[in-house]
């Protein structure tokens, strides 16, 4: 009786999408005894995922993106506030390339560390560039009548996530 | 009735919310357990630290029902040397009670005090203590037993007494060596 966790198979499948099956990836299948069965499992799992991607029957997708040193979990129609000034005009659409993870209800593609740029595409529109709240940095020394107040406001760029799409079958 | 996708999502969201924040009743068997180590486990469950939505401002802890409190086991000679201090606020009103004495008077008291100490000392402590239900033996009232949906694992194995082991199992146990005939035990 072959017993394999569906989630293991999922992560296996995702590792395949990034790089060919290495010995490290084979170690994942500790519970699978027979090599033929292993390849059959991979084929079945990949087939099931690819089938959903080709027909477009998968549910809403979400992705974990890496942007300006921070990670955001996003899905379509989200707004994120990035703590920087982006050299992009208001209303312009950009594509986010660094994607760490993309998933729907039935499968998870885990990047090691990043997913292939041609596989998953995330688009975003810059909708706003603004400043955060003003806060006071107060410096004070006892008995010397020294006190200074410095004021600071952070820059924020708001992005609207337009959509996430998986462009091709994951094992090609 | 056909629901629009948006409405369906919001309906299921409210159900999800109730499921996610459901308050469970867990049961813990204190038989042959160190009460001070067990108290840390129980305190974590009372605070909800075993949930991925834990936050120190969120009241997300579970109820814990502890059974067999009379069978706890203290390490070393702690029954004798662990003292519980009380002062009546009058002159000469100090008193020290040994753990064995406390246990004789109330078999749930040692564990209760251990959990009370393991919980953070803020305003939520009494509320969380009110969700702790201690019983000396394994009989639980029906109105509490019907709530229980979760079992906490014990921290150490309960050893078997020699009398509890059946005769044939005792005989089949391998003998590593034999005492010489003239050996006096």
């Amino acid at each position, binding site marked *: *009786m*072959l*017993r*394999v*966790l*569906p*989630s*293991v*198979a*999922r*992560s296996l499948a995702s590792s395949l999408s990034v790089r060919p099956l290495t010995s*490290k990836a084979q*170690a*994942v299948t*500790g*519970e699978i005894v027979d090599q033929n*069965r292993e390849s059959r*499992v991979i084929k*079945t*799992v990949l087939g*099931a995922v690819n089938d959903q991607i080709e027909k477009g029957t998968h549910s809403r997708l*979400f992705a*974990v993106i*890496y942007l300006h040193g*921070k*990670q*955001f*979990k996003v899905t379509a129609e989200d707004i994120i506030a990035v703590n920087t000034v982006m050299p992009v005009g208001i209303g312009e659409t950009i594509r986010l390339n660094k994607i*760490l*993870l993309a*998933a729907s*209800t039935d499968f*998870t593609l*885990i*990047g*090691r*560390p*990043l997913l292939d740029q041609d596989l998953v595409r995330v688009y975003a529109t810059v909708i706003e560039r603004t400043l955060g709240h003003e*806060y*006071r*940095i*107060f410096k*004070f020394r006892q008995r010397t009548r020294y*006190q200074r*107040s410095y004021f600071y406001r952070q820059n924020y760029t708001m992005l609207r996530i337009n959509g996430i799409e998986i462009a091709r079958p994951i094992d090609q | 009735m056909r629901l629009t996708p948006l409405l369906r999502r919001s309906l299921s969201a409210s159900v999800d919310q109730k499921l*996610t924040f459901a308050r469970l009743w867990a049961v813990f068997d204190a038989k042959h357990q160190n009460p001070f180590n067990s108290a840390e486990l129980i305190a974590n469950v009372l605070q909800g*630290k*075993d*949930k*991925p*939505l*834990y*936050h*120190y401002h969120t009241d997300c802890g579970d109820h814990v029902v502890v059974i067999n409190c009379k069978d706890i086991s203290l390490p070393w000679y702690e029954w004798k040397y662990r003292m519980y201090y009380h002062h009546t606020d009058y002159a000469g009103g100090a008193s020290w009670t040994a753990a064995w004495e406390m246990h004789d008077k109330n078999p749930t008291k040692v564990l209760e005090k251990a959990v009370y100490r393991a919980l953070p000392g803020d305003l939520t402590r009494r509320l969380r203590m009110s969700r702790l239900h201690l019983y000396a033996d394994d009989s639980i009232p029906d109105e509490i037993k019907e709530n229980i949906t979760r079992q906490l694992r014990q921290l150490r194995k309960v050893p078997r007494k020699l009398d509890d082991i059946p005769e044939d199992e005792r005989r089949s146990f391998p003998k590593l060596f034999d005492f010489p005939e003239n050996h006096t035990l």
Partner: protein
Amino acid sequence: MVTLTSVLAHWVKTPANRYWKRRRVFIESGHFYGRSRNCYAIAIRRLEKAWTNAKHGRADLKKTTSQTWQSRISASTESLGLNYFPFAHGLAHQQVALGKKVLADLAWSEPRSFRSLVELARNDACKDPAHIGEPNENVILGSEGVDK
């Protein structure tokens, strides 16, 4: 009478200047308790202390937030039979670069994805069984249409 230029005009101690100077302080001390809300001499001292404390508070917030994330992640991994540090090491060894913030988010909002991450880390750590102990029996070993 001394006439001043407009540059020096704000040096004059008029009742209006006194009012607005205090007004600026009371605006910020409005939520304090007792006389430090309405008495200027007390309010300004409390405010200075509050501003210096706020500096430490901004640093502490980052620390407590990170602790909360770690607590949430470990709560989820432990219910799947893996402790936090083997999980983190396993992910790092598998070159998965997800941070604490996102992992804590996935732990409660996307349990299936989180579970596959735990399995990935567990199988990495399985090479050294001393680190993970026995697999938790909470894990369902299923065969959802993959072995037929």
